[in-house]
Every structure is written in structure tokens, then in C-alpha cells.
């Protein structure tokens, strides 16, 4: 049977003292970021956290207990706001870990017996370590969330399908093509072909840094799918190095019309759809 700890009572009775020490300590610590956060905000957060911990401690120091939920929620809030403010993980974790010294100070001040002191210190350390690790984890989760959201946004942003003319669509590809992106590109393109009734789609790969066999295969898949929908594809924007790589890799692009520039591709697309470009008289005389 665990002996009743004094920590809950100590935290409650010495609340003001701990808070004062803690805030002072945080204000002098090297991890303080005055550029990111106001002192009043820090004071407010510290006060609220300490009183929540004080309440939760009345129900034992196991943070899996439902009584600790408010504390965890509050830590979640802090982690979220600090991620948004640009704190590093250790700066965030120091918010909890800096509470150790004030805790130890009051424990030392109220406990005389050595054995008891040891047990109290240990309890406080375990508690603060668990909370510290918890806020670290939350910090990490928030960061990952940001990365995932950005990835999703990138996927949507980077696959526009634009209409150049009646019956002609262009698909400027930027960045590396992997399976997931190819799938989205393909779906977008096919959907737009249905919507616009386009007969020709120009896939411009000027913005694709490298073309390996996999990327080439993805491109050919897109071309094949568009053809099944009755639209011809032209691949344009092939840089000299990429032309060399394609041939070295033995990728067969003979089934597809390829052009060096988007302008060439557009011209041939216009010709195929029965349209054409003529220069006006003024522009002709300038030449």
C-alpha cells in the first residue's frame, strides 16, 4: 500500500510560492523566447497550468486517470500554440521541466525526514517527467499535422488542368511524379476531358526535374488513359538532358507525340483541331 504522499497538499498550500519561483525561473532561463511570446501570456499559462495540476493531484499522480484530462487538454493547447509560434521541442518541454526546481524547493522546505524527502522528490520527478514527455509528444504531433496538411495542399495545388483553346487542354506538371500524384493528375485530367470535351491534352513536363523509368511509365499510363477517353496527348517541355535520359533508359515514347516546347505543342494541337495562328499585317511588316 502506497503511503499517502504530501505532494498534493504541498502544491495546494504553497501554490503562490511555487508559481512565483517558477515564473521567475522561466523568465531568466535561456529557453525563454521573448520574441515569440509576451511575459503576461507566460504568467497566465503558468498560473493556469499549476492550478490544474494542483486540482488533478488530489486524485493521485497517475496521469492516465480521467482527473488529469483537463491538464492534458491544457498541455495540448499550449503545444498547439507554441508550434504555431515557432518554438523548438526543447523550448516547449522546458515549460514543464522548469517546474522541477520550484517543486523540489518547496518539498525540501516542508519535509525533514530523509527517507520521506527521497520518496517525495521521486514522486515529483516521475510526475513532471511524464508531463514533460507528454507535451513533447503533443508538440511532435502538431508538427506532423502541419506537414501532412501542407503535403495535401501541395498535391492539390500542383496539378492544375488549364484550357488553352477549344478542344485543347494543358497540364503543366511541376515536381516529381510518384504513384500517388500520378493518380491525382490522371483523375483531374480525365475529369476535365469529360467536362470540356477536349480532343487534345498537352502534358508539359518542363517542371519535372528528373524522368526515370517509373516517371516515364506514369506518364505513359496517363497518356493511355486519356487516349481511351478519346483524347490525344502531346508531351512537351522535354529538356535536352531528359531526352538523353529517356533514350538511355530505353523508354519507348514512339507512340506519343513529343515536342520540345509548349509553343510547338500548342501549334500542332491547333493544326490538328483545324484552327491556326496567323500574324496580323502590322506584325508581319515589322519582320
Amino acid at each position, binding site marked *: 500500500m502506497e503511503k499517502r504522499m504530501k505532494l498534493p497538499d504541498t502544491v495546494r498550500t504553497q501554490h503562490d510560492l511555487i508559481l512565483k519561483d517558477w515564473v521567475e525561473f522561466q523568465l531568466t532561463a535561456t529557453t525563454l523566447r521573448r520574441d515569440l511570446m509576451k511575459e503576461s501570456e507566460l504568467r497566465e499559462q503558468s498560473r493556469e497550468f499549476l492550478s490544474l495540476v494542483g486540482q488533478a493531484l488530489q486524485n493521485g499522480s497517475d496521469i492516465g486517470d480521467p482527473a488529469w484530462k483537463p491538464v492534458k487538454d491544457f498541455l495540448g493547447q499550449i503545444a498547439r500554440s507554441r508550434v504555431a509560434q515557432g518554438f523548438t521541442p526543447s523550448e516547449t518541454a522546458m515549460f514543464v521541466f522548469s517546474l522541477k526546481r520550484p517543486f523540489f524547493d518547496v518539498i525540501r522546505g516542508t519535509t525533514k525526514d530523509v527517507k520521506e524527502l527521497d520518496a517525495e522528490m521521486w514522486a515529483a520527478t516521475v510526475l513532471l517527467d511524464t508531463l514533460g514527455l507528454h507535451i513533447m509528444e503533443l508538440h511532435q504531433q502538431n508538427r506532423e499535422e502541419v506537414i501532412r496538411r501542407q503535403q495535401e495542399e501541395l498535391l492539390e495545388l500542383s496539378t492544375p488542368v488549364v484550357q488553352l483553346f477549344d478542344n485543347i487542354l494543358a497540364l503543366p506538371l511541376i515536381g516529381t511524379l510518384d504513384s500517388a500524384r500520378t493518380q491525382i493528375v*490522371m*483523375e483531374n485530367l480525365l475529369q476535365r476531358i469529360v467536362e470540356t*470535351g*477536349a480532343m487534345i491534352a498537352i502534358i508539359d513536363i518542363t517542371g519535372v526535374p528528373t524522368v526515370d523509368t517509373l516517371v516515364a511509365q506514369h506518364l505513359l499510363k496517363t497518356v*493511355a*488513359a486519356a*487516349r*481511351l477517353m*478519346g483524347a490525344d496527348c502531346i508531351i512537351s517541355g522535354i529538356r535536352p538532358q531528359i531526352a538523353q535520359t529517356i533514350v538511355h533508359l530505353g523508354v519507348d515514347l514512339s507512340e506519343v507525340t513529343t515536342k520540345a516546347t509548349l509553343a510547338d505543342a500548342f501549334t500542332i494541337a491547333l493544326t490538328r483541331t483545324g484552327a491556326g495562328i496567323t500574324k496580323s499585317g502590322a506584325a508581319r511588316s515589322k519582320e
Partner: protein
Amino acid sequence: MERIPILKMGNFLLVTVQVDMHDRLAMTLQDDLTGRIVKDRAHGVLIDISSLEIVDSFIGRMIGNIASMARVLDAETVVVGMRPAVAITLVELGLSLPGVRTALNVDKGVEMLKESIEDKARGNGHLAG
């Protein structure tokens, strides 16, 4: 027994697949269509698969086969109205139907057929003259 209707439109035959194709249905269509091409002396076949939502490798291959058979019987074949999802599935299955002509909808398919039949007629006339 369930059958896919084959309609005659001038020189062409129009096949509209309105139900999900199962294997037997595809086999029946193959028989019916080749028979009708010969009987009606059709010069073009339009296969409209705009209602087809689910394809597997067998149906994919059958579509390709039917189109190739029609071509052997001297009828230009155009597959029209394939849905994006079906197109992606076929490509992923490795069935990109090489040699089969495709168009977005029946309208464009008819146009395509008319053009190619005119071309052919001109070519034949040229050879005869």
C-alpha cells in the same frame, strides 16, 4: 436471355452497353455483332460504353477483341464514352487497347467514323481510277 441491342444507323452499327457486362453477355455480343456486320454490310461500328461502370480484365480484353474483329470484317470501330474510372482501371490492368480508336462521346465518334469512311472511299476511288 439478356442481350445488348445493336442498332443500325445508316452505314453504321450502334452498340450501346446499358448494363454491366458479365462474361456471357460479352461473348453473346461478340457473336451478335460479327453476325450483324456481315449481314448488314456495315462500314462502321460505334460501341458506346458510357453506362459501363465496372470492368475487369476479361471485359477489357473483350472490348478490345470485339473492336479488332469488327476491323477484320472491314468495319471501322470506335469505342466511345469511356468513363474516367474505367479508363484508369484498364490502364492499371495493362489493357490500354492498342489499335482501338476511341472518342469522348457518340457525337464525336460518328464524326470520326464518317471522316474515315470518306477517306477510305476516296482512296478506293483513286485506286480504281
